[in-house]
């Protein structure tokens, strides 16, 4: 292929800690979805099959709780890393290279939709597109709310010493609706926008091997590409 030399020229996009945490969260999330929905939609045949394989509703709940702890530990690890990144590595948690939302994200969204209709060019995305930021922040925020409602459901006796009893009902509702939203977004929207869309089909390996080709950098992260080009003599902010 003529583009071999180009394709080999790749850029480090995700350091190993992010790749590792993504992998654990991904597997944990899938496991949580399967066990959680089996307990929720227990009248369905597939749910009964999953519970049968796992050895009963009690075991399924235990697996769910274990996975929840493992997945939440990834959030803790990530937050610790953010502190380390800011305090020791003197990195920036805001700005164009970060996950922090900016006004440009809203402009990018509008421009991107214009692009869908053929009314404009592909916006020059920074290091993280608005959709990637949404995926990340929704997960970071959602893991905490899922964790909180999950803990109320884990030990309702303890929490109802302070909270009224119907908060258990509310926790159930919030937990299940948020789970459905998360699954609907991660299993379909996230999977499609990173892997399955025609440009990336069938898989975008960058989250697993950390590398992104120059070709894709120029197309999907034009803003960052220009920034790297301009500041190639100064040390990168991360």
């Amino acid at each position, binding site marked *: 292929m003529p583009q071999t030399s180009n394709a080999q020229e790749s850029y480090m996009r995700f350091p190993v800690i992010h790749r590792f945490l993504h992998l654990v969260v991904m597997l944990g999330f899938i496991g949580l979805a399967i066990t959680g929905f089996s307990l929720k939609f*227990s009248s369905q045949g597939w749910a009964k099959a999953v519970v049968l394989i796992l050895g*009963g*509703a009690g075991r399924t709940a235990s697996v769910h709780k274990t996975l929840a702890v493992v997945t939440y530990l990834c959030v803790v690890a990530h937050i610790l890393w953010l502190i380390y990144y800011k305090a020791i590595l003197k990195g920036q948690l805001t700005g164009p290279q970060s996950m922090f939302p900016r006004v440009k994200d809203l402009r990018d969204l509008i421009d991107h939709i214009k692009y869908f209709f053929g009314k404009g060019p592909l916006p020059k995305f920074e290091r993280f597109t608005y959709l990637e930021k949404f995926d990340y922040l929704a997960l970071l925020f959602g893991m905490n709310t899922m964790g909180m409602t999950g803990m109320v459901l884990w030990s309702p006796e303890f929490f*109802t*010493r302070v909270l009224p009893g*119907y908060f258990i009902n509310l926790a159930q509702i919030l937990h299940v*609706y948020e789970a459905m*939203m998360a699954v609907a977004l991660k299993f379909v929207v996230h999977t499609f*926008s990173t892997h399955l869309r025609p440009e990336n089909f069938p898989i975008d390996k960058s989250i697993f091997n950390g590398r992104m080709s120059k070709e894709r950098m120029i197309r999907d992260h034009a803003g960052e590409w220009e920034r790297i080009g301009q500041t190639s003599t100064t040390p990168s902010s991360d």
Partner: protein
Amino acid sequence: MSRLALFLLITWILTLLFSSPQRSYGALSTAEGDTWFIDMSRFSKSAHGSLSCELCHGDMKENGEAHPDLKDRSKLRKNAVDLYDYSKCKVCHRQSYARYLLGEHAKALKKSRFNKEAGKSGIRRAPTCGDCHDAHYERSHLTRVEIGAKMTEVCGLCHLSQKRTYLNDFHGRRAVNLGYEAAAYCSDCHGAHECISLKDKAKALAVCQRCHRKAGLKFTEYVVHPIVKKPKNEEKDKQRRVSIIKTVGSIMAVLVIFVVVFFYGHNFLWLLRELHEKLRKH
């Protein structure tokens, strides 16, 4: 001639096929289709299968009336369960019977004795033994899970919305749908024969604490059966909780639908655009 014979033969066979034995004894079936006949092969396999008929039906009297009342045949049109004197059950099932008398069903039955409307079509009288238990065909030695699943159906015959909400609840989903022994069935909270109401918090707490040992009084405010009652002034506190629960549920449903529709639409347009870009190049 042979054609006529064949026609008659076929007609005769069809008549035999479509006339079940029950129909020929139509006079002994009630309006609801319950029959007075007992299937002995099923009876002999039931929990009472080893008992003789006389043990329960010995005096041939039901509520003071002699059984084969040749003058009044309309009796056989009535439901057997309505006529039987279930106080006879206490001869063997003393504890269950005593508990039944303490409970809500017995109280409701006492009330309905004075209510002449009860028993007429459409208006249910409170249940006695025979409404929940089948004296002739009930099987014994069922597992806890089997009994629980059956109980949910039996209680649900009258308590429709309670059955529905229970099966949506954490307890019902595990106990009935997933056959999880440790989860609570109807009688684990309401009692098997007492069938008590748990509107009183102190009563409810004692019940919750059977499984949730560390539960406090606030724990009992958990709503197992979120049912919207028609007269809203009844159980005001519970109705307030139910309305909060329903409102939060509706808000969450709208939020989820909104977010999902937005992103699915977004991605669908994206798919069309990228497909278009790919196809244009080829």
